[in-house]
């Protein structure tokens, strides 16, 4: 599901490889927790995060697991169950966000929902031309719940966030680059080489200065992240989420990610 390699120069490559498109559920969270626990930040100066899956970086939260969790558990357990999962995923996202190494996300294809939220923990994004960014959560009657909106607010203007959130539309790589969301746009299959070159450049800098610069400029919006969790749970406990998840799970449509 996840592969972590560290080379002699101090560059780590974390490759997500869960078919069909790196859906984020308990197993992915466990794997990411393992990376945060085991990553030797004294040995690594840059972490590259990418996907080996054909469809894209990540299609977001594992909706089938979320549906299963809601239907299998008694209603009174929904609130504490959702809250516990959110606390866990937020700890992972915050962990990646604040790693004392430079983080580069390489994005191709689908980068939706929770996958977009994971990408937003990275210091810099390199998007291949095929990349598309989207917050489709309102279609499910919820808001993004993995810290995406507070993190995106650090990077782009609120009008962009309203557009993404309230329309549910996706943005292509060029537009994302023009908005300042992505540091670079490269051709198909070129993202990893661009990321390695950027990592090599980052590795030339003094480690203390590099870590200090990141900590200075990139802070966690803690209050908003907390409020987001509360709002997510409040919305998720209403009937529209379960209805939308049931429709998704029972659908035989081979193109569930289309609008």
């Amino acid at each position, binding site marked *: 599901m996840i592969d972590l390699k560290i080379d002699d120069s101090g560059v780590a490559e974390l490759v997500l490889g869960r078919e069909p498109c790196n859906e984020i559920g308990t197993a992915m969270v466990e794997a990411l927790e393992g990376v945060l626990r085991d990553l030797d930040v004294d040995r690594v100066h840059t972490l590259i995060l990418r996907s080996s899956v054909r469809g894209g970086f990540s299609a977001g939260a594992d909706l089938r697991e979320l549906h299963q969790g809601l239907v299998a558990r008694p209603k009174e357990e929904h609130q504490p169950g959702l809250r516990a999962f959110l606390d866990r995923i937020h700890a992972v996202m915050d962990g990646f966000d604040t790693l004392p190494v430079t983080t580069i996300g390489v994005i191709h294809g689908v980068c939706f929902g929770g996958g977009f939220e994971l990408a937003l923990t990275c210091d810099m994004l390199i998007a291949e031309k095929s990349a598309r960014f989207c917050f489709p959560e309102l279609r499910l009657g919820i808001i993004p719940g993995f810290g995406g909106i507070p993190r995106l607010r650090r990077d782009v203007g609120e009008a962009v966030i309203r557009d993404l959130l309230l329309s549910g539309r996706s943005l*292509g790589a060029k537009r994302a680059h023009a908005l300042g969301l992505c540091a670079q746009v490269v051709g198909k299959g070129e993202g990893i080489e661009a990321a390695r070159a950027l990592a090599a450049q980052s590795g030339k800098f003094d480690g203390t200065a590099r870590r200090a610069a990141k900590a200075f400029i990139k802070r966690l919006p803690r209050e908003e992240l907390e409020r987001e969790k509360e709002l997510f749970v409040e919305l998720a406990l209403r009937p529209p989420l379960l209805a939308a998840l049931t429709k998704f799970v029972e659908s035989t449509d081979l193109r569930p990610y289309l609008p």
Partner: protein
Amino acid sequence: MKATVDTLIELAARHFKVDAAKLRAEDDLFEALGANSFEAVELISELEDHFEIELPDYELQGVKTFAALAAKIDKRR
């Protein structure tokens, strides 16, 4: 000047590696191309780049044929 639908068929055929000569404007594009949702998302990016437009996903709801998609593209040019 080449009609948008012809350019669209050429681009889609190249993207999905199918024979453009076998594609017709009124074909169901998903069936004709054998596209899954991830591939379709990629195609949207390619079309936006080629035609230098933005194609909001919600405007593509219910679009089934190459001709209908070409009409949406033309409205954005």
